[in-house]
């Protein structure tokens, strides 16, 4: 029950933050140059048509009222109207979301399954060659421009070696699988098209690696440093003095204590991945939300940009909440 009250407290704290987010997005939207009504109406519209449109959009009302109108719209799922695609931004988002989700999930799997073991090994074999190698790997990872990495990967694996495809989710000739989840890797298997599954897998490898490299580096560093600090604590000596084997000490006693910062960073990384996905999707022509927003920027489709910004930050906040809850499960000390 204490966990429930903890969750409730966190939720209550979040509400002003979420409101603040909407407010900030609203303010930025209104700093955008140009007249939204004119943009909607088109170049050739008459002044009268534009004024009518402006009135019907509520753009001649005082700002606070517009904000409330905006909030009311948000609650109903109205994120604005995309100028480029001439339909609600929400629909655009829903269309492009599965591709980004798939890429993010695969990247996360890579990050966690490589990063955590690498961090543990680095901590246990501290200052030996493998540790030095992984630290170099990490420094490069956090200093790497993601878009450049993508280009270099393309050069190597697509152009020079020809092992992997360079863009999209499937080869051009192939039709996408029947839509169940929107995640091609799952849908192709559900459909039984093994060939398409293989194709989709090949297509996702490079972007997933590119996207995950940075966060892999971060996770490795965090796991390593938190394991090292836990390994020096008294209760580890106690466990050793009781005859417990080193492997058990590392993987049970140390790791569970280290999981707390690790889970925190992993959770936050998911949010950051959404940001990094923007660049990765652009490089690999991955039809997700990231590429959508870059195309929108180039087209000056500001409602789409603002809609995207809002959705992404909301997701980020929710993920942080989820991380806090998991944190409470892992650390008995903070349930009070």
């Amino acid at each position: 029950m204490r966990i429930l009250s903890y969750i409730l407290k966190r939720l209550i704290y979040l509400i002003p933050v979420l409101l603040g987010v909407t407010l900030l997005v609203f303010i930025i939207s209104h700093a955008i140059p140009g007249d939204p009504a004119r943009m909607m109406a088109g170049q050739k519209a008459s002044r009268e048509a534009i004024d009518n449109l402006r009135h019907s959009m509520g753009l001649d009302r005082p700002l606070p009222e517009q904000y409330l109108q905006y909030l009311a719209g948000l609650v109903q799922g109205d994120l604005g109207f995309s100028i480029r695609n001439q339909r609600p931004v929400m629909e655009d988002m829903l269309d492009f979301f599965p591709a980004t989700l798939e890429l993010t999930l695969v990247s996360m799997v890579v990050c966690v399954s490589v990063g955590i073991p690498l961090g543990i090994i680095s901590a246990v074999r501290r200052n030996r060659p493998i540790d030095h190698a992984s630290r170099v790997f990490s420094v490069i990872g956090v200093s790497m421009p993601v878009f450049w990495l993508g280009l270099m990967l393309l050069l190597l694996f697509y152009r020079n070696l020809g092992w992997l495809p360079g863009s999209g989710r499937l080869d051009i000739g192939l039709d996408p699988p029947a839509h169940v989840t929107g995640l091609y890797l799952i849908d192709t298997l559900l459909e039984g098209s093994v060939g398409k599954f293989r194709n989709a897998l090949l297509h996702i490898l490079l972007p997933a690696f590119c996207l995950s490299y940075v966060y892999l580096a971060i996770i490795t560093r965090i796991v390593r440093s938190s394991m090292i600090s836990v390994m020096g604590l008294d209760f580890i000596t106690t466990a050793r003095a009781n005859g417990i084997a080193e492997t058990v000490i590392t993987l049970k006693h140390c790791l569970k204590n280290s999981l707390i910062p690790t889970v925190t960073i992993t959770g936050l990384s998911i949010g950051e991945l959404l940001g990094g996905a923007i660049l990765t999707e652009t490089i690999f022509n991955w039809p997700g939300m990231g590429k959508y927003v870059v195309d929108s920027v180039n087209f000056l489709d500001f409602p789409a940009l603002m809609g995207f910004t809002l959705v992404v930050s909301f997701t980020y906040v929710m993920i942080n909440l989820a991380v806090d809850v998991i944190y409470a499960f892992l650390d008995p000390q903070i349930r009070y």
Partner: protein
Amino acid sequence: MSEPLLEIRNLAVQFFTYQGTVRALEGVSLRVERGEILGLVGETGCGKSVLARSVLRLIADPPGRITDGEILFKGRDLIKLSRREMRRIRGNEISMIFQEPMSSLNPVFTVGNQMQEVVALHQAVGRDEARRICVDMLRQVKMPDPDQVLLKYPHELSGGMRQRVMIAMELSCRPDLLLADEPTTALDVTVQAQVLAILEGITRQRGVAVLFISHDLGVVAQLCDRVAVMYAGGIVETATAAAIFAAPRHPYTRGLLQAIPRIDEGREALMVIPGTVPSLIDPPRGCRFHPRCGHRFQPCDREPPPFYEPSPGHRVACHLHAGEDQKRSWSRS
């Protein structure tokens, strides 16, 4: 004379650091008989903890290493055992409890989980039996509501309760020797008395020998059968508790006891031992205490004193207690 339970012979431990090699222990020899409580006293930094940890080979290498000597436990030299054999002894035949109850237990596992882990490791029993053993041990250390305690996390218990949990955990596999490194120093005085009483009771009852490390001479006087005094990485005097406190022979021991302020003495000023504890990177030649000793003479800055035995069972590492012939040969040279 039966074989001692633990016999340490000439133990030397060094730590390799940037500033130099720290000679933490040198020429340390000690015996613990079955069932006895041996007190190990000395100032902070004299090597008491290092000694205790060396017995269980808990010294981290790097930077520390056992460079000489033997540690005989039931006749076997612990230094020569493989890591696996050593693990079978830890928590099982020799156990250790530490000073800081606040941090000695893993905060993310329940007390029950940690205790049962140790029991299950060393004894071939099922889960229910292991649990029963743990509840039984908690009862023996007078924990209220033992079944509930097993489900609690360490931070839900007070310092005294945590230390009792430690005692229960370490004695659960029926070891023959318990190393207690300042177990009550971090506790409040009233809690201290409680925990000590429990510790004494349970170890006497089970015939567990205890190496009781402390810098609190009062506690040691009450609890211990015999006492060993350490200074700057070496043992300077061992005797029965009565002998040490009534008739201390080493100048350092004398200084220690004199430094304790007593109400019935009428003295105005506190007695201190002049000088400071020496650096262990570059310790004094000969007897490590000689620079601070008011009784030093010819051999003291040249030859490290061996153990002389001025009366049976009472050993002193001090040249003052050398034989007359020996002293005469020194004064002539």
